[in-house]
């Protein structure tokens, strides 16, 4: 049991990072901190995917022509994560642009203060 848990250390690290990211997103009031938390959370998911694709004794999925009986690691999760990284960057960039705009309007990055300062639309 203990060995089973320990040997999956990549997954454990991914879960810990996920919770750190989620915690940062929820507990910090600063908007940029929230975005950092989002990024940590995203990378933890990527780490989980890549770990899932790992195969013992596997080589990187670049085929060396003419060699046989080579074990390659699972390329599909890697292909998916390539897409997901781009998505994460896009969301981050847009969130940062919003942050800049919010700062221009309210002069603060504190989520609570922004909520106080906000006026209801009429």
């Amino acid at each position, binding site marked *: 049991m203990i060995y089973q848990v320990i040997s999956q250390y990549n997954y454990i690290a991914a879960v810990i990072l996920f919770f750190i990211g989620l915690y940062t997103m929820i507990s910090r009031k600063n908007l940029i901190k929230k975005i950092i938390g989002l990024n940590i959370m995203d990378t933890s998911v990527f780490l989980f995917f890549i770990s899932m694709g790992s195969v013992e004794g596997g080589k*990187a999925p*670049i085929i060396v*022509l003419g060699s046989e009986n080579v074990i390659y690691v699972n390329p599909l999760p890697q292909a998916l994560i*390539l897409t997901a*990284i*781009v998505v994460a960057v896009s969301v981050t*960039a847009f969130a*940062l*642009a919003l942050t*800049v705009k919010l700062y*221009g309007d309210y002069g603060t990055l504190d989520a609570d203060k922004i909520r106080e300062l906000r006026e209801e639309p009429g």
Partner: protein
Amino acid sequence: MTEDIIVKTTARLMTPFIQMFGLYIILHGHLTPGGGFQGGAVIGASMILLAVVYGLEEGEKRMSHDLSTVLESSTIVYVLIGFIGIAAGVNFLASGAAGIPLGRPGDLLSGGMILALNIVIGFKVASTGKTLFYTLAKEDEG
């Protein structure tokens, strides 16, 4: 903007080589690790480097607004490459099945549609990376 001549001169001399390396990554995407996204990101980073060292106007001068508009829309080419499949009587985005020659595996000019798509994606990512940074960093937002 910096006044440091070490940074300035190094950035100036390195940028063409960084861009060349980015192109190398893009064009070897089907052979070695890397591809359109990675190479595009490298080229985009080289433009960001120029902007950080020499100021945003410099980069704007090198890549006009028209050019970046065109490059932003370069995804059109991706779709048009996809239409080759339909024109050939098979499905959207088909490569080998549409009769696009795959070449001899391992050659630089091989991989059928993959090489073309890598180039499209490379330009797209480079221009988007540049646009994202330049828009975000622009001093006067009007």
